[in-house]
């Protein structure tokens, strides 16, 4: 092979991409260490059962919250206080254009298109579902007397009481729509009961927390944001929005814009950046996510200065935001 011409260059992964892989890999390994049990019965499953990425990191965090753990890495010999049993071989389902329906434990799970879920446990020991991306709907038997059934998506954990509900994930944020029964949602240490006909969004919850802890620094004019944030409203302790009161849910057009930008990343990253940037300039609950996403994407596109500017704007505006730690790490890695 010595005379051959050059093979196509290997496109390197960016430093940020490597950091993301490393973070998610070790979070998944932590999750492995916490979970030990036989694999569940699956009607449809990917041939290689492998644990998830982003959700795993969040899972570790949320499980700590649920169990009152002191923050150390979960150990396989440490019983989980939430009663969840474990599985040594989690199963992962990744969908493309079409969704997929899965029978798992005593639940039916409909995985939406372009989604990924990892499933741990079984009906006798309890089930932990990690929604890595996209959307999944669940029909779960009432849990009275049954082992727990928990869905985790980004920073959000949903403990099922017995219900039909849908969880959709966008980045580290998630939305929960309950059709029947009710669920308990835990996000960043906050709990909320979501009843049939209600929706819950981590973005609403996060902004509510931000508004509850006013900080003068937050009010500093971010050079990038040229419109004021919405006037603070007290959303109540649970931050749950009945569907009959759509006012407190994210504006549908903003959500749609955000999701459109997210979908666009794979095919036209620069157009996605423009959409995130436009959305970040607007008022509303999706501006924070859009501003962070714009910074992250700019970094991935090699637009270092723009990325630093966007991420700094995000931190100025939302210093306690859900992505603040990632934003700081990214700025540091960019040498900002």
């Amino acid at each position, binding site marked *: *092979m010595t*005379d*051959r*011409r050059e*093979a*196509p*260059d*290997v*496109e*390197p*992964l960016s430093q940020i*991409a*490597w950091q*993301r*892989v*490393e973070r*998610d*890999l*070790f979070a*998944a*390994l932590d999750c*492995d*260490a916490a979970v030990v049990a036989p694999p569940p019965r699956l009607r449809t499953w*990917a*041939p*290689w059962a*492998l*644990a998830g*990425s982003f959700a795993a990191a969040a899972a570790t965090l949320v499980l700590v919250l649920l169990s009152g753990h002191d923050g150390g890495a979960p150990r396989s010999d440490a019983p989980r206080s939430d009663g969840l049993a474990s599985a040594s071989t989690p199963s992962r389902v*990744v969908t*493309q254009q079409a969704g997929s329906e899965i029978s798992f434990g005593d639940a039916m799970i409909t995985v939406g298109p372009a989604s990924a879920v990892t499933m741990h446990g079984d009906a006798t020991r309890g089930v932990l579902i990690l929604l890595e991306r996209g959307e999944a709907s669940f029909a779960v038997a009432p849990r009275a007397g049954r082992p727990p059934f928990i869905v985790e998506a980004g920073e959000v954990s949903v403990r099922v009481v017995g219900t039909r509900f849908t969880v959709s994930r966008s980045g580290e944020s998630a939305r929960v729509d309950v059709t029947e029964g009710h669920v308990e949602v835990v996000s960043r240490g906050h709990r909320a009961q979501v009843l049939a006909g209600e929706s819950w969004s981590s973005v609403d919850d996060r902004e509510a927390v931000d508004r509850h802890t006013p900080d003068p620094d937050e009010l500093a004019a971010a050079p990038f944001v040229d419109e004021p944030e919405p006037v603070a409203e007290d959303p109540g302790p649970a931050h749950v929005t009945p569907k009959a009161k759509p006012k407190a849910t994210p504006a549908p057009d903003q959500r749609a814009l955000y999701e459109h930008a997210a979908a666009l990343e*794979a*095919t*036209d990253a620069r157009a996605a950046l423009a959409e995130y940037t436009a959305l970040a300039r607007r008022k509303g609950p999706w501006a924070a996510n859009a501003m962070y996403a714009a910074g992250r994407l700019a970094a991935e*596109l*090699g637009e270092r200065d723009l990325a630093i500017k966007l991420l700094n704007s995000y931190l100025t505006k939302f210093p306690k935001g859900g992505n603040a730690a990632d934003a700081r790490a990214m700025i540091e890695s960019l040498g900002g």
Partner: protein
Amino acid sequence: MTVRALDVRRAAADRDLAARCVAGDRASQREVFLGQRERVHRTLYRILGNNSEMEDLVQEAFLEVFRSIARFRGDSTLGTWCATIATRVAWASIERRKPQATALELVPEIADDGPDARDQLVARDAARRLYAALDKIPVAQRVAFTLATVEGLPLAEVAALTRSTLVATKTRVWRARRDLERRAAKDPALRVYLDELRPGGGS
């Protein structure tokens, strides 16, 4: 120190590192990750081409590395062990779904329009055509061909990575090339590219 003695020392070091990983030592696992990530990525890239799921696949490969590292006996280097697993992950990925060939618009834009930039564009377009053609041949042939011809690994190493015999590997590479040659008859850009990849071909 002789090559043989170096090999023995390296094998012992690899086994020791693997044992620490099995014990759950995060620092050792990170050492393996940092030491092998380029090779794992390169192996996946060569087999799959540019792929929007590359980060997921690298992560899958390392999860499998750490989940199966208790079975590492030191018969090969840790690097070869990791590359073998990356090959299996790529193989499984192709079988799960036919990956889309690299869309040119996914490739970062090249701002400069000088000769180098044009060469890069031509090379990327040729690579896109190659991987589009590879999508249409059996996965075993694709894996063998990309590792042997695109990456340029010795056939014996490709056989080891794919847990196959040398004869079977040679046959797969030959069949893949024959199939690609047939497709290249209708695609001049692919034709030129294959000639450049041919041992002894090109300039």
